[in-house]
């Protein structure tokens, strides 16, 4: 497979915050349709890494290509990549001054110039997919955390992205709401979406991931299929992390 056929290709990428070396020589290739779960202790750089993929963070060296487009200072490239890559955040980040429906149609109308009627029809389709169409006219502040996160997923899907990034999508949720969000993510995965998920939900990783990546101190320490990753981790740091996460 040539590089431009990959969904995401990261090679020898480094990122510094001042003198702090946040990401060290990251190499990662994600094929179309692949589901990658990234885990690791807090501060290990996993969020920073996926935020580099759509330029919410700027990398200092190395090469990032998304869908064959090089991510560099070219604003046109950045815009093109952001149009094709959706992102779901830990804190949902819905626009509080707009209704759920307005949240969903805003980007398609502004960025893709989709006519309103068409954008609304598509939005309702995706809201049905995340099982929340009856809330379309409400404001985000009137929804529960789990509902808000499902709306956020629908909002991203409205741009018809080819790659979805999830940055700890269930970490800010009350325990009883986690499964409703994970269910939506599982169904998205079964539709063949390319997904890169930073998450601590090991059950989700086992069910859905093609590959699990473990990061620590800014490095990718271990990459394996979920079966191997959970039953026979090679690296000492991975074993330690897994015993802490799975231990209770």
């Amino acid at each position, binding site marked *: 497979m040539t590089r431009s056929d990959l969904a995401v290709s990261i090679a020898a990428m480094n990122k510094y915050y001042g003198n702090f070396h946040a990401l060290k020589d990251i190499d990662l290739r994600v094929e179309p349709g692949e589901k990658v779960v990234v885990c690791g202790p807090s501060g290990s750089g996993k969020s920073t890494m996926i935020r580099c993929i*759509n*330029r*919410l963070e700027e990398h200092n060296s190395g090469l990032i290509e998304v869908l064959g487009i090089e991510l560099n200072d070219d604003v046109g490239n950045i*815009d093109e990549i*952001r*149009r094709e*890559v*959706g*992102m779901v*955040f830990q*804190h949902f*980040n*819905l*626009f*509080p*001054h*707009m*209704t759920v429906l307005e949240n969903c149609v*805003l*980007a398609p109308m*502004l*960025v893709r110039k989709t006519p309103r009627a068409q954008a609304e029809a598509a939005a309702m389709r995706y809201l049905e997919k995340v099982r929340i169409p009856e809330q379309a006219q409400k*404001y*985000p*502040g*009137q929804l529960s955390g789990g509902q808000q996160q499902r709306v*956020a997923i629908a*909002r*991203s899907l409205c*741009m018809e992205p080819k790659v979805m*990034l999830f940055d700890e999508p269930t970490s800010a949720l009350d325990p009883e709401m986690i499964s409703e969000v994970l269910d939506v993510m599982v169904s998205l995965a079964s539709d063949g979406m390319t997904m890169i998920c930073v998450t601590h939900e090991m059950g989700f990783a086992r069910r859905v991931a093609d590959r699990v990546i473990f990061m620590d101190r800014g490095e990718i320490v271990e990459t394996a299929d979920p079966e191997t990753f959970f039953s026979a981790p090679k690296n000492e740091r991975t074993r330690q992390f897994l015993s802490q996460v799975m231990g209770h």
Partner: protein
Amino acid sequence: MTDTSPKRTIANTPPGWFDNVRRRYFPTPIQSVISILGLGLLGWILWTLLNWAVFSAVWDGQASPETCRAAAGACWTVIAQRWRIILFGLYPFDQQWRSALACVVVVAMVVLSCVPAFWAGRRLAAVWVLGTGLFYLLMKGGLLGLPLIGEEKWGGLALTLFIFVATCLIGFPLSIVLALLRRSELPVISKGIGLFIDAVRSLPLLSILFAFAVVVPFMLPGWLQTGKLYRVICGAALFFAAYQAEIIRGGMQGVALGQDEAAKSLGIGYWHRISRIILPQAMRNALPATINQFVISFKETSLVIVVGFFEILASGNAAYGTGDWTFAYREVYAFIALIYFVFVFSLSRYGAYLERRMAVGTF
């Protein structure tokens, strides 16, 4: 335990107004005394004011200054005799209907642009272009058989309203530009604009008005040296913008960083992120302070008197200052205060309405 015990029944009855008054104002003897004294003082002030303004006042529009001076109360004759000077200043007497109509146009323009149904770019632009054009045609004339009347003759309420509206119309967009530049990622721009804002804010408005009226003309080419009124308005707008920029910047800081990131991740460009995501939320945060700034600016229009413009307060001075009515300054100032109150109070009420309206969808 049953619900029918007498104690329970009493506790569940809402207290009547009489009980409420007794409990709040007369709970102990000392507090009762304080309440009665306070009430007495309030009654006395109210009575004195009413007596001066209504009962002992002279209401006859044709009364002579001598009758008026002899009366115990207010002399409203001066308003009847001199209201046209107060409202229109030096504007030629037989043309003053134009000035009055111009005031109506400005007020209508402001009221229309305060109605949510007009909050669309094209409608708002139409209201402003039409309103400003009509105001100009009426005030300045020189067209359609209306005699030309220069800005130096403008005065009174029309001038006050014109200076205020023009200041806000120039100053508000400028304040948004300044606030955005202040947040620029380029240190040269953000620091430079920060320095500029701080510099303007550390000068008194009076000195800025003076500078724009008197000093700036020396630095301009000859054809720009006329139009003192417009230079003064530019000075006032700059001052307004410096303060309002910091208010808007404060509002922007209250918008979570994640909002901008979410918009970026959806591929939304800079201008749309600012206009659709950041600014609407920032303005909601900044609304109380913004209304405050508008109120202050309205009252600060009276400072243009120092560079020789007869806005409403200066026209009031002229109304009692000449001839027979020099003793009647209280009545003139009370009348002007009432006019200020009507405008500023409406502004505050409108602010309160906006706050209620914008509260929709808040967390």
